[in-house]
């Protein structure tokens, strides 16, 4: 199948979203830098957002009866805004963490471990 000619469907978007999501998870799972983890979270949120947009898009599937319509964009908008807020708070926490631990290595933040 020639990908340039074949039309794009919902599944394709979902796959991209999955890849972003998994990349984000990987990022969170492998980075020791607080900021790296933060970036992983951003990727995860974007993967999810892409799904919302795709499910709500009027262009991606023939049968629109199950489309979530404008709600998809709405939720995505809220996600974006909350992600910004989350980033601000996470960054503030990271800064404080840096001030107290003089490092950004999350592995050092294990004072509460069992």
């Amino acid at each position, binding site marked *: 199948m020639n990908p340039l000619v074949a039309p794009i469907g919902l599944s394709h978007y979902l796959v991209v979203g999955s890849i972003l999501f998994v*990349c984000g998870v990987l990022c969170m799972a492998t980075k020791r830098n607080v900021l790296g983890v933060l970036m992983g979270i951003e990727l995860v949120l974007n993967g999810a957002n892409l799904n919302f947009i795709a499910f709500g898009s009027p262009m991606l599937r023939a049968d629109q009866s199950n489309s979530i319509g404008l709600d998809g964009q709405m939720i995505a908008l809220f996600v974006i805004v909350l992600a910004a807020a989350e980033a601000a708070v996470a960054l503030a926490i990271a800064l404080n963490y840096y001030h107290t631990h003089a490092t950004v290595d999350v592995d050092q933040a294990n004072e509460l471990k069992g």
Partner: protein
Amino acid sequence: MDAINWHSFFFLMCALVACTFAIAVVIASNIVRMACYLVISLAAVAGLFFLAGADFLGAAQLMVYVGGTMVLLVFGVMLTARGPFVSMKTGPAQWLVALMAAGALLFVLVQASFSIPAWAGPLASQPQPATLPATAEQLGYGLLGVRADQLDQRDAVARGGLSGYLLPFEIISVHLVVVLVGAAYLARAKRRVTKLSTNTAGSHKP
């Protein structure tokens, strides 16, 4: 030959960029480079939003994520990175475990994406972007509590239920304020420079 499908073409471009740089974020060890790749990846995602007919979301993604969040990140990087290259290596065993888990997740997700036939089938004739509704206004109305896209709902009761997102919007805005104040407070170092002594004027002639 078949006429090229521009939608597919741009989708492929953006998707490739987004995925490639997302993977680059995972692989890169320098935090600034990670940030840079992330910005590019997110910008490509914004492109995907545009392609899916969500212009406003795309622009918001660019503005908020790339313009705002990422600069915040860069700030954080600058403030916390001692020297330009800070990398904290993760052990190969952890990589392996993480990759296995992530691979399983990816498999499950992709499998799920293609498992519904209705999702794979595209629109027989895709609407041109020009004919699409202006979602920015609809979003605006939605935030004000009117679902402009649902006014054709025949069931009056159901229409009443579709009352938009005014309350979440209000909550989110308050939430944002709280978060920003909290973040500002958290990041404050509560330190003051001691007041420097300034010479007071004396007046004797040389």
